[in-house]
């Protein structure tokens, strides 16, 4: 069976989640690989969630928020834009390609952009292949021995 990446998407309630909804309402086709978790703001996305997602077997994580200046909570996305680059360096230290973590701005009216970003991300992860961390391998071996 061909490799289908599992991607976790953290979408802010006001822009990106609505944008994703619009993509659906507008019947825009996009890859089904992104599994969406709604948060009120992209600033709510605790870095621990992202690491946990990778640990649980996600091949990629995408965080989406409002465009800078458009945040419903005024400046939540500015917190996010500071956190994600740090986190990219951190995941690189864990042996995770930083390209597996993405931050994108999608506004409530950008259904087409949501689809484009999702498709791009899916293609990129597909090319990178499944994420193999030591925890995953250990789990696999344990399963084989059992």
């Amino acid at each position, binding site marked *: 069976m061909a490799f289908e990446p599992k991607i976790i998407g953290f979408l802010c309630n*006001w822009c990106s989640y*609505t944008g994703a909804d619009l993509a659906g309402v507008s019947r825009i086709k996009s890859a089904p690989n992104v599994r969406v978790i709604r948060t*009120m*703001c992209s600033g*709510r996305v605790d870095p621990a969630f992202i690491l946990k997602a990778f640990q649980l077997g996600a091949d990629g994580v995408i965080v989406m928020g409002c465009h800078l200046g*458009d945040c419903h909570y005024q*400046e939540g996305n500015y917190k996010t834009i500071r956190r994600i680059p740090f986190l990219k360096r951190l995941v690189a230290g864990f042996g995770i390609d930083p390209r597996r973590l993405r931050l994108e701005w999608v506004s409530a009216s950008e259904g087409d952009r949501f689809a484009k970003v999702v498709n791009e991300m899916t293609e990129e992860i597909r090319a990178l292949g499944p994420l193999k961390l030591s925890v995953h391998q250990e789990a696999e071996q344990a399963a084989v021995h059992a």
Partner: protein
Amino acid sequence: MVTINIDGKPVEVLEDTTILKAAEKAGVWIPTMCHSEYFEPYGVCRLCSVEVVRGKRSRIVTACNFPVRGGMNVLTNSERVKWLRKVIMELTLSRWPNVRVVREMAERLGVAEPRFKSLERDEAENACILCGMCVNMCNEVVKAGVLGFAHTGIKREVVLPFDERSDQCIVCGSCAHVCPTGHIKMILEDYRGKRSEFTLGPKTPIYVPTLQAVPRVPVIDTESCIHFQTDGCETCAKACEPNAIDFGMKDEIVDIEVGQVLLATGFDLFDAGAMAQYGYGRLDNVYSSLEFESILNSTGPTGGKIVMKNGKEPRAVGIIHCIGSRDTNHHPYCSRVCCMYALKFAHLVKDRTSAAIYQFYIDMRAFGKGYEEFYNRLLDEGITMIRGKAAEVVEGKWSGEGEPSLKIRCEDTLIGKFREIPVDMVVLCNAIEPRTDSDVIRRLFSVSKSPDGFFLERHPKLDPTSTATDGVFIAGCAQGPKDIPDTVAQASSAAARILSLISKGEVEIEPVRAMVQEEYCSGCKICNNLCPYGAIEFLQESKVSHVNEALCKGCGTCVAACPSSAMTGHGFTDAQILAELDGLMV
């Protein structure tokens, strides 16, 4: 009050009024050439000389500045006065024989040919007759004090300081306004500064913004008003009987506490100058739709007459649709209202002139109630519809001769041919676009915009008047191009929504809030500075942070940042999100 006799007529006036004013009241004409209501009597032309008789003595005085006293007898037509006026008029006429006001006055006083010969005879029709009106205007009314007299006797002349252009001159045009001979001319055409937004004519510094303005009171443009530059003038205040003009008023910012807001900020008109091919702003008689609307208006610059710049009626009018709209270079959307107002223009032009009318359209969109019927009626009225967007407007002559005019080049897609249509006037149907500062307003109220730049509604079908922000509603062209019936419908709906919340008296809010589990809080204060609403305070006594639930909007930024997981967000706790994550990984 005192009573005086003018030419035997008794007249009752206030003491100290001038004889000239008293004579005006008595209906007696006294000739003047240097007098104006604008400023104090000057008394240089001497034409207003009259004879004042008191008892046995009589003397000649100037009526314009001589105050009346009780029992005074004034003769304005005695032999002595007539002789004096004749001499004065002859002297004036001998020096400026061709000036219209001088000739008219001489005629009225019965002076035909002067007996004198002036050494400084000036044949010009618009010669300066040294009446001093401009000088007095500049000094007393405008208070700029730029104009003055130089030299004496027959060398006397009106000059600017050092005979040079003066920085002190505010170019108000008052001197040219009072000059009786036309000697002073304004060389800048639109010296009054800005052109009005709604009419094509220049606007005076005090004006009523539009006839529909509410309240319908005039406003003063402080940039061009003389008073705000020199402290002088105040002509409008003097003319205003109820004393309603207050120069001390200032713009003020008023804080009003409200619970709900309706954004109805309207639209801007696309600047057709960005499409150089249509010649807007470059060629004469090319108008935007709003300008043409003001031409059609009976209170507009032409009084509702459809005329070209040279005052003639156009022989043909071209109306070009979709300027800046349905155009991938500018706005991809349709402005909706243009097709119908273009038909209205055609109807009115047909009604008021005998001009031929050409409409250049991409598609006719007569979408509303009764619109298609109106379109059919217009077709019967005999306008020419050309399907194809005009390529350009160029200067050209009608069939190679006659006065220069305009030509519209286009492709007629129905007959598949390239055409050149000669017209005298072009009306462009500019696109409706979002206000230039709509982004500022949008961010102020946390409202999103759709890709076209207009405010985004909560749901395009089910909730077109409210926004993602509770209590903020939108209506009209701020939300997207629409015509008047649609705007009224949307605005009424928004108003009803607002009223329903007011009558309820209370609002439901999202239960999503952050909360500190105080036993875990280490008091690091990291969250305190993250909150954009200042909802988190540090309790000095217990050394923990505390969330003010009334201020918290539930964004969760603090929850994500808390290093000891003491902060939790209702509805979006760490445990809930991790459980979601677990579920998604299956």
